[in-house]
C-alpha cells in the first residue's frame, strides 16, 4: 500500500543559549516514517521527546530545519503558494489535546463545522446545514440539530472532543493527526473516543496518534513508533513491539506503565530524561540509563536497523548493524 504521507530524515533544531554561547536544541532528529490509508500509527514518547514537534511540523505549524515531507509522493516542505498550502491543509487535519481550548468559546458548534466546509469549498451555503448534521451524526453527537446550536461551554469534555473530531473530518481529509486526544478526558469517556477512532479507519483515513499512553496506543493503533530525545528508537507493529520490545527504553516504558493485572515488581530506574538534548554528543542518548550499554554505545550513535522483518530499532546491542547487513547479505562497511 502506498503511503499517503511520508517523512524522511525530518529534523528540527531550536536555537537556545545566549549570544555568547549559542547552542541548538535538537528537538527532532532524523525521523523517517510513513502513514498509510486506513491505518492508525501511534507516535509514542514522554514529554520533550519530540513527538508533538513532529506533529506540528506535519501540520505546517512549525517549519522543519531539514528533511522532506512527502504528501502523495511529492515533497511539500517547500511549498509557499496559498493554493498548494490550502490543498495540503484540506487533506491533513488535526485533533488537539485540550477539548476546551481547541474550540472557540465565542462560536457555536455549527459555526465551527461550517468553516472548513466553506474554506475548502466542500459544499455551498445551502447544503452546509445538512452536512453539519451528518458530520455530527458520524461522531455520535445526536440529536445533531440540538448539539449544533450549542456553545463549547455547554458541552461536556467528551462531546467537545467529538466536535473537534467532526471538524477535522469536515474537509474530507486523507490524514488526521491526533495529539493526545484523550489525555484530558475522564477515564470512562476515553474508550468512547478511542472506539470512534477505530471506526473511522473505515473511511480510509491515515491516522497519526500521538500519545504517551502505551495502553491506549495498543488499543487503537496498528503500528507504533517510540521516540526518545528527538529520535525514533523503535518501530513496528504495535502488538509485536509491546510483547517483545527490542530497545531498552521501550522495555523501560512498558515496565513503568501501571497495569492493574500485574503485581508490583521492583524495576530499576536510572536517572535521566526523555527530553531532547542541547548539542548532543555522539553516542546513544539512552546510554546513561541503559542496563545493556557497551563501549560502542558511548562512541557511536546507533542507527535504525531492521533487526527482523518489520521490526526496526536503534540499538547497538539488540539491533546491531551486522544483523541487517547479514539480512541483506552485504559486506560490512
Amino acid at each position, binding site marked *: 500500500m502506498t503511503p499517503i504521507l511520508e517523512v524522511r530524515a525530518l529534523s528540527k533544531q531550536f536555537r537556545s543559549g545566549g549570544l555568547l554561547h549559542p547552542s541548538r536544541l535538537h528537538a527532532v532528529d532524523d525521523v523517517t516514517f510513513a502513514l498509510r490509508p486506513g491505518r492508525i500509527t501511534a507516535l509514542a514518547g514522554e514529554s520533550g521527546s519530540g513527538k508533538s514537534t513532529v506533529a506540528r511540523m506535519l*501540520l*505546517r*505549524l512549525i517549519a522543519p530545519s531539514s528533511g522532506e515531507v512527502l504528501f502523495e509522493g511529492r515533497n511539500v516542505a517547500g511549498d509557499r503558494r496559498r493554493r498548494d*498550502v*490550502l490543498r495540503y*491543509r*484540506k487533506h*491533513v*487535519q*488535526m485533533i*488537539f*489535546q*485540550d477539548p476546551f*481550548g*481547541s*474550540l*472557540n*468559546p*465565542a*462560536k457555536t458548534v455549527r459555526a465551527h463545522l461550517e*468553516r*472548513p466546509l466553506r*474554506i*475548502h469549498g466542500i459544499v455551498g451555503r445551502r447544503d452546509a446545514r445538512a452536512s453539519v448534521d451528518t458530520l455530527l451524526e458520524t461522531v*455520535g*453527537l*445526536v*440529536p445533531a440539530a*440540538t*448539539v449544533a446550536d*450549542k*456553545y463549547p*461551554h*455547554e*458541552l*461536556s469534555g*467528551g*462531546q467537545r472532543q*467529538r466536535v*473537534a473530531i467532526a*471538524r477535522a473530518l469536515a*474537509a474530507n481529509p486523507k490524514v488526521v493527526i491526533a495529539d493526545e486526544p484523550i489525555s484530558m478526558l475522564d477515564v470512562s*469517556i476515553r474508550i*468512547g473516543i478511542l472506539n470512534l477512532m477505530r471506526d473511522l479507519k473505515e473511511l480510509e483515513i491515515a491516522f497519526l496518534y500521538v500519545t504517551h499512553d502505551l495502553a491506549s496506543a495498543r488499543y487503537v493503533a496498528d503500528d507504533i513508533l517510540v521516540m526518545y530525545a528527538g529520535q525514533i528508537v523503535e518501530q513496528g507493529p504495535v502488538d509485536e513491539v509491546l510483547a517483545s520490545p527490542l530497545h531498552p527504553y521501550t522495555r523501560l516504558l512498558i515496565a513503568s506503565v501501571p497495569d492493574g493485572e500485574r503485581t508490583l515488581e521492583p524495576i530499576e530506574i536510572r536517572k535521566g530524561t526523555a527530553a531532547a538534548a542541547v548539542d548532543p554528543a555522539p553516542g546513544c542518548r539512552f546510554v546513561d540509563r541503559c542496563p545493556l550499554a557497551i563501549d560502542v554505545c558511548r562512541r557511536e550513535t546507533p542507527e535504525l536497523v531492521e533487526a527482523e522483518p518489520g521490526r526496526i530499532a536503534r540499538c547497538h546491542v539488540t539491533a546491531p548493524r551486522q544483523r541487517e547487513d547479514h539480512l541483506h547479505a552485504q559486506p560490512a562497511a
Partner: protein
Amino acid sequence: MSQLQPALELAPPPVVSKSRLPIPGWLELLLRNPKSRVGLAMVGFMIFVAVVAPLISVSDPTGFDLYAARQAPSWHHLFGTTDQGSDIFSQVVLGARRSLLLGAAAGALATVLAATLGILAAYSGGIVDEVINFLTNVFLVIPVIPLLVVISSYLKSRNMGTMILVLALTLWAFEARILRGQALQLKNRDFVMAAKVAGESTWRIVFGEIMPNMISRIAAAFVLVFYVSLLVDAGLEFLGLGDSTHVSWGMTLYWAQTNSAVLQGEWWPFVFPGIALVITVLGLTLILAGIDEVSNPRLRDEVRVRRHLLRSLVFPSRRAA
C-alpha cells in the same frame, strides 16, 4: 432507560438571558453588575439629554441679552445666564451633544486602530509585529497634552473632525499595546491553531477567531478613550484653545473663567457644566469598573465576599452562608 448515547446528557448552560427582551448576553451581564448598572444609567441619562436637547433648550445658547446677563438660576433660566446673557441651561444640554459625540467618535476610531493593529501584530509576529511595535512606541512617546496644545494653537480649523482625529491618533497607542498583549495570549490557544490548520486566512483569524474573544477588553478600551477624550477636550477648551463659536461644556467653563465669574460670586457658570462632566465621566468610569468585574471572575468573587462581609456586619443576625 438503560444505555445512554454519549450526546443526550448535555451540561447545563451557565448564564441564560433571563429577560425576554432580545438583549445580548454581555449587556445583560453589565446590567446585572451594580457598578455598571449605575454607570450605564448615568451615561444613558446624559445621552438622553443630548438627544432631546434641541427640544428642551428654550433659548439660543449664544444669544446676547444684556438685560438678562449674570443672572442666578431661576425658573426662566434654569441654570442662570452668562455675562453675555446666554442661557447656561441651553449651553449645557446642547453642549452634551458635542462632548458625547466627540468622545464616542474618538473612542471608536482609536479602538478600531488599536484593535486592528494590536491583534495583527500579535498574530502575525515577525516583521509585521516589529513594524507595528515601532509605530506604537513612536506614538506612545509623544506627550499627549502638549501635542494637543501645540496642534490646537496652530490649526486654522478646529472643528470637531480635526479634534476627533487628533485625539484618536494620540490615544490609540496605549490601548494597542494592551490589546496586543491579550491577543498574544489568545494566539497560542489551540482554537487559533486549529483555525490555521483548517486553512483560515490571517484576516479571518484576526477578526473571526481572536477579536470575538476580546470583546470585553476592546469595550473597556473604547470607554477609556471616550472619557479621556472628554476630559482632554474640555480641558483644552478651558485653556482657551477651543473654537469660541462652539457650544460645549469646556467653552462654558472657559467663558466663565475669562469673565471672572468666581470673583463675582457667580457659581452657576462653573457648577452646572462641571456637574455634567462629572456625571458623564463618573458614569463611564463605573461602566469600566463593571466591565472589569464581569470579565475577571476572580474579581467577582472578591467583591461578593466583601459585600457579604459588609452585609453580615450590618445584619449580624443573618446566618453566614
